[in-house]
């Protein structure tokens, strides 16, 4: 077999143990990521409960169409990632590359939509630190909302960007024929990371875009 050295490294008893060790390590990392984002969600919870009215006003300034479409786009991306893992498991090399390319395409689309949203907020004068000219109801706490919005979506977008890099490397390795049905752990591990990125957005979307739609 061509990838004997990759298929089983000598410290492991068998390929199953090796794969379980990798998955275990990735989940440990993802747990730390849960706490990383968790701190920010905690901060959000505190300030939203202290200033619910200002958060409602600020939330309705976000573009729901852009938010909704980017949510759907990211879910599509996650689905293609899952399909890439499936293709790897059944040994379809070209399908892995194709699905990873689709995953990357939708990830880039997500970033483009998010950037245009940020740009619109900037032009509306609601970007703290750069252009904040909002002077209507409760500007201080509206500013707090947008500070949290840009911190959390920004941190998320940086994860998406890193993910695109990881996906590109994995697609290249798949194209080179590194992966076999016996050894495709990197595809699966990158998949775990990518689904985690989707997971964070699943919470960001309702908590930022859907706070106060019923009030208008």
């Amino acid at each position: 077999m061509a990838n004997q050295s990759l298929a089983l490294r000598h410290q492991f008893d068998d390929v199953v143990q090796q794969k379980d060790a990798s998955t275990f390590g990735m989940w440990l990392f993802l747990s730390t990521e849960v706490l990383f984002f968790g701190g920010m969600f905690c901060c959000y919870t505190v300030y939203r409960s202290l200033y619910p009215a200002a958060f409602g006003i600020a939330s309705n300034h976000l573009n729901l169409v852009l938010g909704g479409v980017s949510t759907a786009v990211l879910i599509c991306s996650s689905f293609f990632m899952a399909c890439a893992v499936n293709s790897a498991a059944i040994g379809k090399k070209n399908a892995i590359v194709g699905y990873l390319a689709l995953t990357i395409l939708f990830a880039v689309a997500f970033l483009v939509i998010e950037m245009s949203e940020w740009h619109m907020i900037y032009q509306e004068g609601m970007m703290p630190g750069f252009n904040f000219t909002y002077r209507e109801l409760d500007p201080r706490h509206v500013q707090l909302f947008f500070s949290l919005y840009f911190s959390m979506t920004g941190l998320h977008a940086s994860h998406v960007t890193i993910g695109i890099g990881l996906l590109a490397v994995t697609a290249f390795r798949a194209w080179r024929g590194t992966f076999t049905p016996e050894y495709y752990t990197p595809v699966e591990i990158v998949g775990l990371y990518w689904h985690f990125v989707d997971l964070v957005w699943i919470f960001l979307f309702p908590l930022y875009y859907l706070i106060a739609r019923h009030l208008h």
Partner: protein
Amino acid sequence: MSEHIVTKKQYSLVFGILLVLTLTTTWVSYIDLGKLNVVVALVIAVVKSMLVVLFFMHVYWSTKLNKLVVVAGLAWLSLLLWLTLTDIFTRGWLPFPGK
């Protein structure tokens, strides 16, 4: 053991449910449910994330050790939220300045 191969059909089903739930949460947000709006939004988000974790991330078929890591991560997250929020929400309960 992670040798279970999830089929594209299974993934497609989860994918469909995720899209429907996204539409549902957007639609429900336009209905005035008072304080329940945030509860409904979070319940739908939790259901969606469970679908992603269990099926897209294969935790449903993974080892007990892995499931333990997932549960431990969530336990630490709830500690983080619980201890911070009990502090924030109980301020002003005692008639001492600054408490």
